[in-house]
């Protein structure tokens, strides 16, 4: 199967940021994103999703390297210090490179 390489950026963070993140991602050049609800634990303690303030979201963006870099830089600068947030990058293959 011939696929093209893209980056998958996965972000786990506070649900309160959903709207802000969506705006950021589009501004930074992502063509789309996927969100699901999550809960978890990390350096900022347990976030058990019992209610809004303790809920996480898990955001995925498939994009090219340059966009991934821009997203990484932006989130690091604006959110890492003050928000429960984890971000990681992986390599994925896609069939329609023009789409991402």
């Amino acid at each position, binding site marked *: 199967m011939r696929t093209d390489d893209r980056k998958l950026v996965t972000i786990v963070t506070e649900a309160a940021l959903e709207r802000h993140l969506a705006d950021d991602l589009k501004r930074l050049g992502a063509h789309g994103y996927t969100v699901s609800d999550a809960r978890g634990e990390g350096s*900022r303690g347990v976030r058990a999703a019992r209610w809004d*303030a303790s809920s996480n979201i898990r955001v995925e963006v498939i994009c090219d390297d340059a966009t991934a870099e821009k997203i990484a830089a932006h989130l690091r600068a604006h959110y890492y210090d003050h*928000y429960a947030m984890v971000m990681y990058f992986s390599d994925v293959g896609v069939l329609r490179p023009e789409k991402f």
Partner: protein
Amino acid sequence: MPDLDPIVLFFIFGLVAGLMRSELRLPTAVYELLSVVLLLAIGLKGGVELAKQSPGSLLPQMIAVILMGLALPLAAYPALRALGRLTRVDAAAIAAHYGSVSVGTYAVAVAWLVSREIAFEAYMPLMLVLLEMPAILVGIMLARGISAETNWRLLAREVFLGKSIVLLLGGLLIGWAAGPVALEPVSALFFDLFPGVLALFLLEMGLVAAGQFGSLRRHGFFLVGFGILFPLFGAAVGGTLGWLLGLSIGGTMLLATLAASASYIAVPAAMRIALPAANPALSLTASLGVTFPFNILVGIPIYQRLAEFLHGPGV
């Protein structure tokens, strides 16, 4: 045992189940349904009463209550800075929580009055709405100064368009526009079910509050002291204002309760966006882990006695 209203028992039940680390929890969707019904119902009730008031007649009360909403966080802030040695931004965020109000606490106080057949001014939900917001603005200014940098338009959006304020305001307006007769058909959901919905809500709040106890130890016992003493101070301020405004005993007690209560829905959400550097664990531990249980279990009867005391023996 008239103090053990069943809705308070539901709260204690949740608290105990949570402390025993039971598996019990209500799904988030259910929690949201319950809060939507509570907020709309409170708004509707207040709106129906508002329609009976001649326009403008409440203006003095409204202004006084807004001023109290601005003053309370200004009183809390220095205490948090000096005694709690908190950072500027953390002190400001907590002050905002305590200047604002808790809808759950208000609902329990109303149920407490109703079950004892104590009258109160039925337009009190309007005061609830008015008290939600001013403290948020004061908190932001305390943390940032009145800097040009602050994106006030964006902040106003977060604050005014947050769920709880929108639902309270929407309920108020619908109640005001429709009037009591037209609301008759929806009263089975919003009024008859209200105490049961409040009971389930308090069960979940008990579970959530129990979850906050763990962080109490971590964040020092200053928060416990503040979470009990500031509400008592707030109640004194609110009660006195109610008495000065000529409210009934029930209304005075409700204004005391509002002043004593601390927000755990609207303000945390607004602070997360407006003051991200503030540690949300601090304010939630105080507001949910200390003040909410204190008010529900101990405070409300105290505030009633305070109201009776202020109104003097003649009443």
